[in-house]
């Protein structure tokens, strides 16, 4: 495995709720390697979502450093963050969050629109991306005309279209049934491994963790334990070498 693409150093996040101070993330240090599928697992209130938000630059840590691709996220202003996200970050939401007024194709091109990519180029790339997520026939449908699974596929296509270094997924299957959940996880991890992209998934569903290289179990704002799944790695290696022989 390659270098550490995400480095978190002693990060703390406090919230003030009236007079009470809540410690959502309490001094976490964590490195995520390039190409790794990292799963943040924990119950609600464990601080996993806050940690994801901190990594994605949606919130600023009260203390500590977050370095992605050698850049200090916590020191960036809004404009720098926007430029950074355009270039390095993809995001998959639990509730898909597609823009209702735009078609599937336009939703997928949106990150490229913000980057100022030409119509021709971005349409081409978006079509490829939609094909990759299995939605060739639905390019001109609006989100309201699609099922949850289809919407999440569009959302995944949108997250990957920039060819980002890191893709964050916040409970990506929280609103989906079991069958679709597996389809979606296959899709995300498949896309990520194809381009050696790093994947950080937040979930409370243990089933999903079997897709991860590493499971970070969180509790009360701290890392309780980190499990590595070597078996899966080995299995994949066998499959790959087998494929080579054939």
């Amino acid at each position, binding site marked *: 495995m390659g270098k550490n693409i995400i480095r978190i150093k002693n990060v703390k996040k406090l919230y003030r709720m009236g007079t009470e101070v809540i410690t959502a993330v309490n001094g976490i240090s964590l490195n995520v390697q390039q190409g790794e599928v990292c799963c943040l697992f924990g119950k609600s209130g464990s601080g996993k979502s806050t940690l994801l938000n901190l990594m994605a630059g*949606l919130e600023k840590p009260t203390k500590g450093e977050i370095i992605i691709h050698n850049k200090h996220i916590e020191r960036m202003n809004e*404009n720098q963050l*926007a430029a950074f996200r355009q270039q390095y970050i993809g995001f998959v939401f639990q509730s898909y*969050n597609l823009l*209702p*007024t735009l078609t599937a194709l336009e939703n997928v091109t949106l*990150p490229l629109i913000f980057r100022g990519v030409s119509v021709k180029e971005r349409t081409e790339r978006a079509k490829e991306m939609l094909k990759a997520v299995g939605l060739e026939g639905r390019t001109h449908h609006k989100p309201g005309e699609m099922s949850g699974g289809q919407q999440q596929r569009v959302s995944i296509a949108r997250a990957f279209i920039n060819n980002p270094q890191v893709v964050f997924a916040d409970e990506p299957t929280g609103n989906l049934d079991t069958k679709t959940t597996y389809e979606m996880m296959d899709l995300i991890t498949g896309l990520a491994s194809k381009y050696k992209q790093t994947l950080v998934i937040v979930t409370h569903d243990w089933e999903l963790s079997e897709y991860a290289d590493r499971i970070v179990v969180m509790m009360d704002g701290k890392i309780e334990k980190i499990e590595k799944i070597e078996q899966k790695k080995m299995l994949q290696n066998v499959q790959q070498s087998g494929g080579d022989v054939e």
Partner: protein
Amino acid sequence: MSIRDLMMMAGRNLWKRKLRTFLTVLGVVIGTTSIVVMISIGIGMNEGFKKQIEEWGSLQVIDVYASGSGGGYVMMAPASSSSSKSKKDVPLDNAAIEKFKAIEHVEAVSPILQSSMILVSGKYVNYANVIGIDPAAMEALGYKVEEGRVLNGEDKDGLVIGRGVIESMYNPKMSWQMQAQATPPEIDAMNDKIMLTYDWNYGTKGQDKSIKPIKVNVVGVMPNNGSNSYSVIMPMQQMQKIMKDMEAWQKKQGSTSETKKKGQYNQVSVKVDDINEVQNVQQQIKDMGFQASSLTDQLESMKETTKMLRMVLGAIGAISLIVAAIGITNTMVMAIYERTREIGVMKVIGASLRDIKLLFLTEAAFIGFAGGIAGSLISFVMSKVVNVIAMQQGSDMTSLIPIWLYLSAIGFATVIGILSGYLPAKRAMKLSALAAIKTE
């Protein structure tokens, strides 16, 4: 984000909330329409004045008098203030005329010599205001004929008569009661024999037989409206000759009329080629030490008196546009509340603050622009309606919308849209990207 993409997204967002967009645009339409119609009535009023004054004479002609002498026909011109400053009399002579000609934007200059004389045709006579001018400048000075032609530089003895002089000719031998009942004479000014005399008693018992009426050659007739219908225009040279005879005769009679130094004129008319330069040229002439007045003085003072009314009309329009602007702001603020999550999502997937701000500004600008276009169209119809109603009531206060008013109305409405959208856009920009993550 390119302008094209901004417009596309803004358009989609507005289209999604059709009714609300329509109602907001409607507010702008009402504001734009009222401001355009109100201003158009103001413009129509001014144009009306202009037309009215142009009937009295050309707006581009300045009348110049020697300082100290009384003005000619001045209806309501304010007393020229500069005359009091320069007490020293500057002679209004040929040298002065050359100086006027040298002023920028001066098209033509002519001395004016006026006298009352009697026009004779057969047994009929009439008083006429005889004006001697430089015949070459007659056309430029704004004299119009409805028959024949105006004088030109080659005319030495031609004459242009106002229709009014001819139509009101009377037989001096009749008493005035009989004159009132008599049918008006039918005189063909262009072909009948017409004579001119300075003997005011011509045709009556007091006629001085020593004065021989001069036969004149009529080359044109001026229409029976405006200030020249009772005038007779002739070349300066001929006029001066007649005046010399007249003064010699008057001297013999023992009466001395105004004593005028040789080579000086009482009045000079100056034609300016651009109506907007009239006041400027007039001031330059005043600065030389002459008195000067023009019909633009009257126009200005008429405009001044209605300024208040026009301002009130404009204010009514402006108020409705302000209300419309508040409507736009309200709509945009509502949109931001509804789209908080959407804005967050856009930020998470890489929209810059500028993109967010521009998107909302574009939406607001669209509302203003659409309202401006529709408002202009409706104003066009309203203007026609106002004109029809005004005409039925016999009022000459009509509405007039020049192209620039349409264009500036559309531009103004768009700017109003952008200004109204500024605050909400700023607000949208500041929304946290975190809103995208929160699940409902």
